[in-house]
């Protein structure tokens, strides 16, 4: 079963956030599952159209997702999906 680790910065808005076990398939499906566990969380990660927000990075294992628009990158059993915020200034 894949799992998702999210940046601690998101705990400001979702205090109960912890590692989440998911079914997987694609990154888009994983984000959808996250939103069921933490309603509203998906809108912090993706925009109105489901594309990854500009300053959010998602990795599947050690690989950054390549399809930032539709998040079609596959997520295999046993893999970890990481949700980070990109670094930015000021």
């Amino acid at each position: 079963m894949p799992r998702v680790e999210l940046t601690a910065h998101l705990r400001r808005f979702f205090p109960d956030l912890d590692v989440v076990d998911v079914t997987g398939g694609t990154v888009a499906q994983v984000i959808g599952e996250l939103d069921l566990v933490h309603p509203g969380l998906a809108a912090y990660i993706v925009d109105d159209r489901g594309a990854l927000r500009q300053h959010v990075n998602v990795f599947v294992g050690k690989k950054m997702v390549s399809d930032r628009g539709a998040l079609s990158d596959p997520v295999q059993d046993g893999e970890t999906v990481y949700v980070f915020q990109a670094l930015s200034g000021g």
Partner: protein
Amino acid sequence: MASSGARGDRLVLGTRKGLFVLERSRGKWKQVRLAHAGVPVSYAMLDPRNERLWACLDHGHWGQKLQRSDDMGETWEEVPAPVYPEGEVLKGGEPATLKYLWTMSAGGADEPDRLYIGTEPGGLFKSDDNGSSFELVESFWNHPSRLAGDEGEEFAGWFGGGRDNPGIHSVVVDPRDSKRLWIGISCAGVFETTDGCETWAIRNKGMTAPFLPDPPPEVGFDPHLVVPCPANPDVLWQQNHAGVYRSSDGGKLWEDVSQEGGPVYFGFGVCVDEKDPDTAWVLPADGDERRMAIDGALCVCRTEDGGKSWTRLCEGLPQESAHDLVLRHAFDLAGDRLAFGSTSGNVYASENRGEAWFPIGHHFPQVYSARFA
């Protein structure tokens, strides 16, 4: 926090690093609340109909969020931010997504649950459940002028001014008739509906724009802010990218009332007297290439004759080494009291219609909005 007094005894700041509530007590202002610390607050206001505080958040990473508070900012509830419907596109075909929550307005007195939000990339959203949900005002989004430039017509269409995409910064509800609204967009211009958002008329006659061909197309102007006189809303004032304008017929015709020889020309905010439609205040800036205080000196200019003449008011304001800019939503009026907050984090107020100014504070983050409550 003290209970609510008269409007004007509280000032709500939306800043680059959070929402501040300032309160006036025994003639002194003090900060009574910092909420959303560290988060850019693009606009904040108190809905006077129900004392509900609203914060439009511009998270650098997590997108645009909307929060409301019924206890003056002690506790907050996040509500879903407006979403552009699937299939809606910008000029050029890019999918439309929410970029920025630029302004909020309460509906009329007879519409207690109505709220409006003006956004980038140009969508007007309305709520009829007090902000629990918002929907795109399709009639306005589908106005033929918006995408006109895509079709090779003699229109500029709507385009970004200061921001990447067109944005709605002014939503004016006629206090006499809730079905009548004026919308200000940078860049497109001013639009009016008189039938509750079903149809829209372009209200740009009389405006000029040095960044458009001459003669200019029907849309493409850059009103920075549109403000009515509450006692006579047929009189509208506008601080534009290209001057200060006044209309006495609900926007059908705009008259350039900029000051010959300056400094009243470029700026962002404008305040209008609550009773006298001939009295207004602006904060001239060195524009548009520089966008800072003129010659390092802050000043407010007031007219009491409909823009025929202007008086420079600077008592109490720094007259050297001041480089502040005051953004469009960061200048407000309540009775004889005025206040503004600057991009340099300075907040000033006047108790006597701008005759003299005093500082409320000097070390706030960059101020995006300053609204009396």
